[in-house]
């Protein structure tokens, strides 16, 4: 059966993402951020930061590659035509800055069924180039039965 629960606990290849200043700006603009620390290096330094600061939800950008690998794994077996993003959690530690290299490792936390719904829950842990944790994510996808 697709989505066999023996895949629970599986951890995927870490994914490395280099954070560019222009990517932070592009993201911050798209979500309507206005704080200059997300756009202007000088404003960021004057506010006490070492470089342009990624908004918290920029986590979706640097986690993206790791999550794609996990979600698309045939052993996980999600039927994408029937899947919706049901829930999301992030717990932030250190900030992420332009110039950082963030390494994210995704894993399968749980697969469960309730009524005609199937729940796929993934964890992610992201660390920066100094080995400091920057964010933990919990990603819940819900597949509707056919």
């Amino acid at each position: 059966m697709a989505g066999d629960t023996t895949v629970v606990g599986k951890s995927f290849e870490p994914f490395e993402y280099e954070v560019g200043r222009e990517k932070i700006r592009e993201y911050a603009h798209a979500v309507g951020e206005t704080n200059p620390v997300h756009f202007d290096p000088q404003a960021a330094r004057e506010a006490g930061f070492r470089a342009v600061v990624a908004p918290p939800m920029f986590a979706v950008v640097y986690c993206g590659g790791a999550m794609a690998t996990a979600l698309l794994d045939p052993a996980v077996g999600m039927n994408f035509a029937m899947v919706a993003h049901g829930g999301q959690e992030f717990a932030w530690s250190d900030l992420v800055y332009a110039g950082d290299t963030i390494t994210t490792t995704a894993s399968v936390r749980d697969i469960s069924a309730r009524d005609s719904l199937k729940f796929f829950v993934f964890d992610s842990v992201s660390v920066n180039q100094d080995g400091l944790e920057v964010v933990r994510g919990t990603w819940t996808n819900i597949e509707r039965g056919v």
Partner: protein
Amino acid sequence: MDMRPGEQLPELRVTPDRYLPHRYAGASGDFNPIHIDPEAAKQVGLSSTILHGLYTMALVARANVAAAGGDPRALRRLAVEFRGMGFPEKEIVVRGTVRETSDGRVLIDTEAEQDGDRIVRNAVAELAG
């Protein structure tokens, strides 16, 4: 950060324009056609393209960071449920109410609503002073 249980956060009101999902797709890397292709959206029974849930979550994050004074370090945790679809060209309102405070940490019950539909629900933000 001086917040008391029951206190309401200032509302954040945003009306994403028609091309917002395109910009968010480029910024996030999520090019699922239901966000950017009206024909693909119609094929699955939607009246138009829909917003990315993680975009709406970013608005919830913004409202909570703003309530904490704008320092991006203030947002320690945010958990949300996506319970409806958001659409471009309609106003989204993000609200929040302080649930409890302890040891400099504030828990906020928060949600995003559009046209009476609570598209992000049961969300909890943790802020640090």
